[in-house]
């Protein structure tokens, strides 16, 4: 089997891209939820229509920073080879 397919490398690629791809997409989405909270634009729920939530802004900032860090790690990983 090893002659045909490098399962270890493939497994690492899949794991890294699930965390880095789907994971960061989810974190970014959470950031949008925070941003929406902050702007008081949630469609429904306890916070609907109430603006200026500082918690929302904090969540959004944290999430977007996390995504930016993920991108930096990804670029570093590619260039390092």
């Amino acid at each position, binding site marked *: 089997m090893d*002659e*045909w*397919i*490098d399962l270890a*490398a*493939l497994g*690492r*690629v*899949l794991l*890294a*891209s*699930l965390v*880095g*791809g*789907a994971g*960061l*997409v*989810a974190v*970014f*989405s*959470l*950031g*949008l*939820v925070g*941003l*929406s909270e902050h*702007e008081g*634009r*949630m*469609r*429904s*729920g306890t916070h609907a229509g109430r603006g200026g939530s500082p918690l929302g802004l904090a969540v959004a900032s944290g999430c977007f920073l996390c*995504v930016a860090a993920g*991108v930096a790690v*990804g*670029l570093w*990983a*590619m*260039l*390092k*080879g």
Partner: protein
Amino acid sequence: MDGDTLLLVTVVATALAFDFTNGFHDTANAMATSISTGALRPKVAVAVSAVLNFVGAFLSLSVAATIASGIVDSGAITLTVVFAGLVGGILWNLLTWYLGIPSSSSHALIGGVVGAALIADGTGAVNGSGVVSKVILPALLAPVAAGLVAGLGTYLAYKITSNVSQNVRDKGFKAGQIGSASLVSLAHGTNDAQKTMGIIALALIAHGSLDEGADPPFWVIASCAVAISLGTYMGGWRVIRTLGKGLVEIQTPQGFASEGASASVILASSHFGYPLSTTHVVSGSILGSGIGRRLADVHWSVAGRMATAWLVTLPAAGLVGALAWKGADLIGGTAGVAAVFVLLVACASAFYLAARKAPVNSENVNDEWTGSVAPQRDGVPAGV
């Protein structure tokens, strides 16, 4: 100019032409979804992608003067074989562009070289298990892996933002999509321009004007960067249309999830040394983003056409490569290579003229998908 130098110049020109078609064919990989969701205007998208491909080409830290290593015996790689392989790669890229099918430029090049090596040196020159493990299996696995990541990402993106206002969601995902598409462009420049640099380095070594193991001169890096970014800027609109409109009707969260998945799979695969074709990854991601969103419309007939083209890429480019080698060999020497080069230019012009009859460009790239690459005009199917 003596014969050897003429041969070198022809091979370098052909390599740069391949680099150009590579950029041209693959603009879609990074930008198709951003164009179809309206995150970027078509002209802006190709310009951004061109600049990032240019920058990416300069980021290549190590250029290896190898081609199809582990697939074709390095002793069989002569200048004429490399030239014939490039011809196979270019013509396959142009045909699939004309048909609007995203197919892998790297596979086209490898196919061309394998075909030329087979006819030049016989079956002993090609490593069968290398073809399976480095070309065929990755081609099957890449879209599945990318599709899985994109599908999960799309599902999560919709789930998490279901309660977010339309305005924030649209703007946010569009911004995110521009970022992730830029990342794909940069990675494309780094990985793909490097291949052409390696080919030119190989030609220079064979000519004796570059020492083996030495870094290629600056003009090689610069000319490859220019060729791939010019190709990208020309925009392979036909392929962009198929990927952006033909495969799946894409909304912004899907576009973001699929570009994010593509970027992560491409970066991870180059880090862990499991080379996957950008084209296969991106096509898989877009399909995955269609499956991840319930009720999204996936055009399976287009996906089937694409998969067929992937299967045919290796043998078809191989056949052209073999014919090109045979043609050059029959005429003999530098004159043979020059004759095949002239034929290549003629074929390329024919594809260009044929495509102009039913053009796809920045104006009509986002028109409603009606089952054909070129949008219908006034209800009349416009060919292809």
